[in-house]
């Protein structure tokens, strides 16, 4: 469970067709950015994407809420990705994810640049935080009032990681497919033997 001793797991994301608008009120939609789980396989601080998704989904499952995963191809902007997903979600709640780890909980009736909870400092997000984000998103979907996930803050994160974050963003940007609609994904997470 701790980020120190994560067993090796592989993540396979298979496209199953264009993303549909959900009708079930008990689902949260997770939306990933163009390069997530493909060009990139881990966040800016090395948390494997397999673990990021697994913990988010576990947090949602623990609350008894369903989950769908989509990929937004047309943009690498977190607010746009998250808002697009919120509008596809049956509950109106979504979690948006960038490859470097930046995460946001969004709701369909909010303005695009607003959000329910934002975790802007990607270097500070570990497995436990992703679990808590999933859990909160599911509680919003159920109409409950979760306490916001405590956001950590590190003044040094910006100077230390800014250059790397910028490079990762450029790379993510190159994976954008203009005009392509969001697609439904099927996630397979398998443990590497040994």
């Amino acid at each position, binding site marked *: 469970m701790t980020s120190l001793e994560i*067993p090796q797991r592989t993540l396979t994301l298979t496209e199953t067709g264009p993303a549909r608008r959900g009708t079930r009120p008990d689902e949260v939609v997770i939306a990933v950015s163009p390069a997530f789980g493909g060009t990139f396989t881990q966040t800016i601080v090395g948390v494997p994407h397999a673990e990021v998704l697994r913990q988010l989904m576990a947090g949602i*499952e*623990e*609350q*008894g809420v369903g989950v769908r995963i989509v990929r937004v191809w047309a943009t690498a902007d977190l607010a746009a990705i998250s808002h697009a997903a919120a509008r596809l979600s049956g509950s109106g709640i979504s979690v948006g994810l960038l490859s470097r780890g930046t995460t946001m909980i969004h709701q369909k009736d*909010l303005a695009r640049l*607003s959000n329910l909870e934002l975790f802007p400092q990607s270097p500070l997000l570990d497995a436990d935080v992703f*679990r808590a984000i999933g859990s909160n998103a599911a509680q919003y979907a159920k109409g409950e009032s*979760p306490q916001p996930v405590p956001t950590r803050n590190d003044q040094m994160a910006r100077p230390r990681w800014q250059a790397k974050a910028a490079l990762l963003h450029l790379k993510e940007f190159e994976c954008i497919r203009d005009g392509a609609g969001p697609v439904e994904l099927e996630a397979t997470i398998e443990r590497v033997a040994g």
Partner: protein
Amino acid sequence: MSGGDRLVVGVDIGNSTTEACLAVLAADGDVRWLGTALTRTTGVKGTPASTEGALTAVRRALADGGRRAEELDVVLLNEATPVISGLAMETITETVITESTMIGHDPATPGGVGLGVGVTVSVADLGEHPGDEPAVVVVPRGWDFDDVAAALNAAVARGVPVVAAVLAGDDAVLVSNRLTQQMPVVDEVSAVEKVPLGMRAAVEVAGPGRTIRTLSNTYGIATVFDLDPDQTRQVSPVARALTGNRSAVVVRTPAGDVTDRRIPVGVLELRGAGRTVTVDVDAGAEAIMAALARVQPLEDAHGEPGTHVGGMLAAVRDTMADTLGGADPGDIAIRDVLAVDTFVPAEVRGGLAGEIALENAVGLAAMVRTSRSRMQAVADRVAESLTTATEIGGVEGEMAALGALTTPGVQAPVVVVDLGGGSTDAALLTADGTSTAVHVAGAGELVTKLIDAELALEDREVAELVKRWPLAKVESFFHVRHEDGTVQFFDEPLPAHVFARVVVLTAEGPVPIGTRHGLDHVRRVRREAKRRVFVVNTLRALRQVAPGGELRRLDFVVLLGGSALDFEIPDQIADALAGHGVVCGTGNVLGDQGPRNAVATGLVAAFAGGAG
């Protein structure tokens, strides 16, 4: 001056607001009301610092009435209510779990359903567990839910009867969803390493929306662990502590126990005119109030030194000494106390999962009379600034009653009840003009404190908002459900930080309350706090001024003061008085001021009466 008409202004400097009322008095005693004003009190009332607020109020009243300061003949100031109040609160019970006998923290999402009884085994030792004994698996922090489920499934496949699991992390549903055989799973047990291993234990989880039936029943525990009558008597507090939970774990250890210990709070000594009565504070508010009734009128109250109650009264005395500007705390005599029973959620000592128990507490409001008023200093400064004659008027209660008489539909004899911040004051004005006034401890500030403590808000500002405004639940960005169940829609989306929260609907918009409790619970706490302070105190004060102590002999009761503007306190008081045949309502001074400005208006009326 000219033609015998005189322009007068009455000024009431209160704890939080300063009010003024402007009128013209004709030579024949006729009073023509010109204007009113309300402003914040500057500094502590009665001190020279409050002059500034008084001057502001006078200028605003003049502006309201369209007059100039030079025309003013007399400024009338009130003699401030000679009471100051203080507050203290102390818990009197403490729940202690010894030897980790029970886990009853009620996690939001336990897994599985049913009751499992077996011997506690660490998940790390599950591989060597013999196949004949039912196992309650204990999982420490650091274990992934996939691994836990795999270990449990492997043991079940090996033929080990695994009957339940206790987890450190928030994983119960995740593990349950991956099990081949269903069993109750309790999670979020933060100190799981303290669960004794190799002991008999029972784990129970109820279905969604239900509560456990076996472990919350003393005889259920006795049946599960095969206890004799003596042991059964011992586990009774365990069962009581688990009542209302959806999940629970009970471990049978040789000497484990849950006790509901009463903290020795100390003895309160109430000294009356003829007699002195002592009462144990942990006997609760009812016993204290009964003792107080026996010694009326109270002359002073003392707490046993070195005990909680001693500390409480000392704290009250110290604050009052500060307010009075350096009086010796020893010289302060407490003239009234109000004790209120309350519940404070507190973490259980010895608990394994941050269990919270509602502990009993007693809130005390105390009040002292002050003799030294420095109103003359204020009067001198006002006179100097306005170059007008300034007079200090009569008793505040009597003035308030005179002001209340300007409420349409009211006639003497009348009782005014001033619902203030620190004290509740009542004054009776009979038809022949005599008046009696009483002051009892406990008012708006005690209500705020009770709300703060019972909801564990630890934020006085938020507690104040909960007291003042109605509640609602924000159900979407475009609608809220009010506390009466009605729905209101909005055209503009509500701010993101209130989404899905219980909010107070203030004049500035919705403010979220940081609590796990639902809207109904918050509402119940708020209404109960108001009832226990204002209804109880109003009845107490009215009995003291009513002829023969009988409420039936009162005719008109007029509610005044800031708390009379509250959206439910006047209704609660009116309901409580309805059975006594009393006409009760919120005052409407001068027909348009509501419960405000009564004292300022009364000052002018009294002056007119005296002059005419």
